[in-house]
């Protein structure tokens, strides 16, 4: 064997290993980029249309899949999901923080009864005199639950006796009801590894508990903290606007029991529906618009610090 041969062989050997790995890396990167671009394109075309309340493919739904959704809709009696586009309104000016919605939701959806598991909840924002940031009270926090009430009964404790807290006067306070925003571009759907959560054509983001493996990626992905893990079932838990009720022509349970009309629900495809009127007649806002999720819960009367 000549020196030349040895050199060639050596180069060839080096090339084959390094180049192979290099090529593999480049190839993977290219493939990833392609896939990424493809899905981004699909989501952009799907989500952008629906974010404005229009009709079209849902998030991450291809055109042929949308065509199938129109042609063979799911077999729900007297209901076609392409004819509805549900939306939710919260008029925070009316909320009295009675928490009837929380209890009704737990009853309706078999949510775990303790205060750490909720599909919908209520927060109280309290501004003290001279403070620029709000104190946020939530029923998840034991100090805001009435002493003596048990783990399954909910009531805000008034820790601001005589409008005072630690010697400071309460300047402004209000309640805000929170629930899943059923976003047009849901982060939770994007991260779900098993296809257990998805954006339905009529709006709600649903969870298929049969496919959910309880990995909780979605819990972390949600910018609104709307998801939790149901420790009894071992699957993800979140509000779906009582999909089993709205597909039967009923209101979600929380809307049904809200005694003040804070919670408003309806079909955006029907201009006369309560939520269409609510959005039309009020200056509404969504939570954290900068996150780019395009929420479908519209708020009236919330403050800058509500997110």
């Amino acid at each position, binding site marked *: 064997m000549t020196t030349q041969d040895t050199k060639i062989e050596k180069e060839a050997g080096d090339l084959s290993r390094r180049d192979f790995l290099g090529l593999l890396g480049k190839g993977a990167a290219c493939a990833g980029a392609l896939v990424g671009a493809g899905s981004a394109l699909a989501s952009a075309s799907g989500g952008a249309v629906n974010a404005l309340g229009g009709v079209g493919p*849902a998030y*991450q739904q291809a055109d042929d*899949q*949308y065509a*199938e959704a129109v042609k*063979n809709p*799911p*077999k*729900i009696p007297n*209901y076609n999901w392409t004819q509805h586009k549900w939306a939710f309104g919260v*008029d925070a*000016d009316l*909320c*009295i*923080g*009675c*928490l*009837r919605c929380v*209890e*009704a939701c737990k009853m*309706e959806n078999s949510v775990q009864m303790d205060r750490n598991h909720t599909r919908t909840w209520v927060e*109280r924002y*309290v501004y003290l005199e001279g403070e620029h940031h709000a104190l946020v009270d939530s029923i998840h926090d034991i100090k805001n639950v009435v002493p003596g*009430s048990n783990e399954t*009964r909910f*009531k*805000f404790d*008034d820790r601001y006796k005589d*409008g005072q807290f630690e010697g400071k006067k*309460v300047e402004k*306070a*209000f*309640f805000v009801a929170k629930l899943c925003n059923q976003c047009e571009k849901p982060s939770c759907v994007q991260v779900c590894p098993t*296809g*257990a959560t*998805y*954006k*339905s054509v009529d709006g709600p983001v*649903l*969870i*298929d508990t*049969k*496919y959910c493996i309880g990995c909780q990626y979605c819990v972390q992905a949600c910018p609104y903290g709307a998801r939790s893990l149901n420790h009894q079932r071992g699957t993800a838990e979140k509000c*779906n606007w009582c*999909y*089993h*009720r709205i*597909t*039967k*022509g*009923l*209101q979600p*349970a929380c809307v*049904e*029991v809200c*005694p*003040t*009309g*804070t919670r408003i629900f309806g079909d955006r495809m029907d201009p006369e529906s*309560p939520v269409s009127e609510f959005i039309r007649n009020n200056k509404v806002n969504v939570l954290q618009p900068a996150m780019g999720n395009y929420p479908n819960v519209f708020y009236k009367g919330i403050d800058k610090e509500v997110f």
Partner: protein
Amino acid sequence: MHKHIVRLLTLVAIIAVVATTAKFSVIQDTFHQYGHYRGASVAQIAAKLPQHQGSASCQSCHKEIYAEWSSGIHRKAHKDNKVVGTVIKGGVNCEVCHNGPAGNHPSKEAMPLSIEDQVTTITHLKHTTHPANVADRNLMRDPEDMRILCTNCHEKTVGRPLRGKDKGGVPQVAVDGHGGKAQCNSCHNPHSPTINFAAIPRAPVDPITGKALPVSAEKSGDAGAGRSVAAMCSACHGDTGVSVNPEWPNLAGQNDSYLANSLKAFKAGERKNDLMSPMAAGLSDADMRNVAAYFSRNSCSVPGGDKAQAELGKAKAAAAGCVACHSSGGLRNPGKDGVSGAQVWPNLAGQNAGYLALSLKSFQDGSRTHAVMTSVAKTLSASDIDNLAAYYATVSCK
């Protein structure tokens, strides 16, 4: 071909077969039908049965309560009375307080007829025992303490919007200063909570005009002047107010305001009695105050009654909620039974059994009416009435 290549290819082939089999057997047919999910799951999620049924579904059995509620403030609170599906939008629906009844409610078939008859005639004073305390059924939140239930919405709380015109706020009360330890439903009917304040004057109040008096002006009639008026009453009610006939009421020791109010009602025709109506027609406002003051200061006596009946009556008085008003301690606290909590309500202690029974019967048949007593009397049987009358005729009136 080299052995190791063959092994590799075999392995690849096995993996391919397993993967293909898995794809067709494990992945559901409907996966990818509408997207990266199981298409069949949409209908499965929608198939779940609703728990909350809406107020309209309560109407089919609880007709009277429904009518009471639908004409009251808890129904009328909202301007938008649109009916959407089977659910009445807005308003404080049944299931706001009775949370869980539709889900935990006994089915109509499972319910004995007698109970179904009961639910259509149930009245609000029984609210503390029905429907909340049906064994093993969580039909209502905090049924045993209405103050916890009502204050969910009506307690004065920071952050709760104040009530105002065209605002959504609800009436907010500081509980300690409002009713103390009394249960909300001793005065408010939870199904229609507005109290007709005109009918329940608050002390100090002028019993004749019904107008509130400043505390310093609280002055009852002149008992001395009343004595001369009382002369015309003595033929029936005795000189000191102890009647000669057990079917006529004893006036001795009766509450001042109640007596004056009664005379006023006879004169105005709101209460009718062949003997009393013409007598009261001849009295001036001052006469009424004076004669009421006179009789209220006389000392009462216990007429007595059947002991066995009185025992039964005592139990019924507690169950029917009589003590809410006709005990000095109210519903929850110990007090003198038969001695009423307010001057405008009559003391039952020291009263004739015959008269008490007659009064309850007149409330029952509608010949005498009162916002609370009419509905209470309708829940009583004939033997209940006799027992209650015997009981109150035997309790101490001092």
